[in-house]
């Protein structure tokens, strides 16, 4: 799990949009994984199983509280990229792309993370999110359209 924890935390950050909540959610997920260790099928992907646990904990236990206290609302400042090379065009553009992804509705930005960043297949993403594959497609199509529209002519090298 230590190998996967940074990606699990990032997934929790994308889900919750808040660093503190993401930390709580990632920790709760690890604890739940230990409790449910006997349900993990050896030979399957641990990361997908952890993401699925995180998704369920978020939806069933933490999301309502986070939204109620405002922690679930997106704070762009909190997820700003580390500015290692201030002023460079690439860093600015990457930051802008990230900002547009974070401005998507939760369902779309999570689908975008799983498929385009984590590299999950539609089927794997559908399983993590517990939704039909067709819904994954719809969310990705909507996410692509919004990001592309917002970035306009700046999206050089887009695929």
């Amino acid at each position, binding site marked *: *799990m*230590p*190998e*996967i*924890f*940074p990606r699990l*935390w*990032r997934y929790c*950050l994308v889900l919750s949009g808040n660093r503190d909540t993401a930390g709580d959610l990632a*920790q709760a997920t*690890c*604890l739940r*994984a*230990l*409790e449910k*260790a*006997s349900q*993990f099928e*050896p030979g*399957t*992907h*641990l*990361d997908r199983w952890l993401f699925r646990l995180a998704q369920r904990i978020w939806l069933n236990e933490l999301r309502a509280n986070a939204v109620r206290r405002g922690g679930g609302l997106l704070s762009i400042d909190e*997820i700003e*990229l*580390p500015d290692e090379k201030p002023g460079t065009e*690439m860093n600015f*553009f*990457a*930051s802008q*792309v*990230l900002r547009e*992804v974070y401005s998507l509705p939760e369902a779309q930005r999570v689908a*975008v*993370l799983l*498929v*385009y*960043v*984590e*590299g*999950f*297949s*539609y089927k*794997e993403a559908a399983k993590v999110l517990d939704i039909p594959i*067709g819904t994954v*497609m*719809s969310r*990705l*199509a909507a996410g*692509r*359209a919004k*990001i*592309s*529209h917002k*970035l306009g002519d700046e*999206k*050089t*090298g*887009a*695929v």
Partner: protein
Amino acid sequence: MNTGDYITDEDLTVYLDGEAAPELAQRITHALRGDGEIEHRLEALRIPLDELRSAMDSLTGQAPAMPPLPSSKGQSRRSGGVIAAGVVVGILLGGVIGYSVPGRVDNDWKAYVAAYQALYVNKTLSDVHISSLQAAAMLGDLSSVLGLDLGSVSNDPVLNFKRAQLLGYNNNPLVQIAYLSPSGEPIALCITLIESRAAEALTVGTMQGMASASWTKDGYGFLVIGGSDETIIRASALRFKAALSG
């Protein structure tokens, strides 16, 4: 999501993501050649994935350290049952051993092809004999599947054409055309549909211990691989590139 003949944004997204079924991929590929509106809609769905991945990778570097977890003894009390230490160890090891990063569609197909090609020996192909008529029929079918005319690839002046077959990767058709080199080494030309329509110049290298050359053009990825002689692979790739560009 396919609704009759109309190509939806979901269809185009599936196509961009390399998840389209061969029939849909072929339909869109054909539509793109003659329908500017489809091309425009496809463009409106493209996003800068490299920048997105780069930005998201920066985020993992900001992750806090994994918090210490309770021992299995304490955990057993919490869950009201016994967690076998072996299972927990299995999960922790699974994180290291069982975990693999899923691939990017546009690059990883070559790794799969290379692994497949590494299993070929001379005898895999030396006893394969098909007539020129059969070869033409075979390549005609595969040309339709890919939407690319493959008619010329069975007449290579150096490599001895043996057969062509349809494989698949990520729900996309992948055509493998097999040859034997003059010294009897198995060599393959593989072609698949990829996300990017950008043209990438021919690159020669080594994969799975075999010489390889790859390039992309017009939404197709090409790979020539086999044997250890980079000179033969480079020259063959250049001939195929010229033959398939027309």
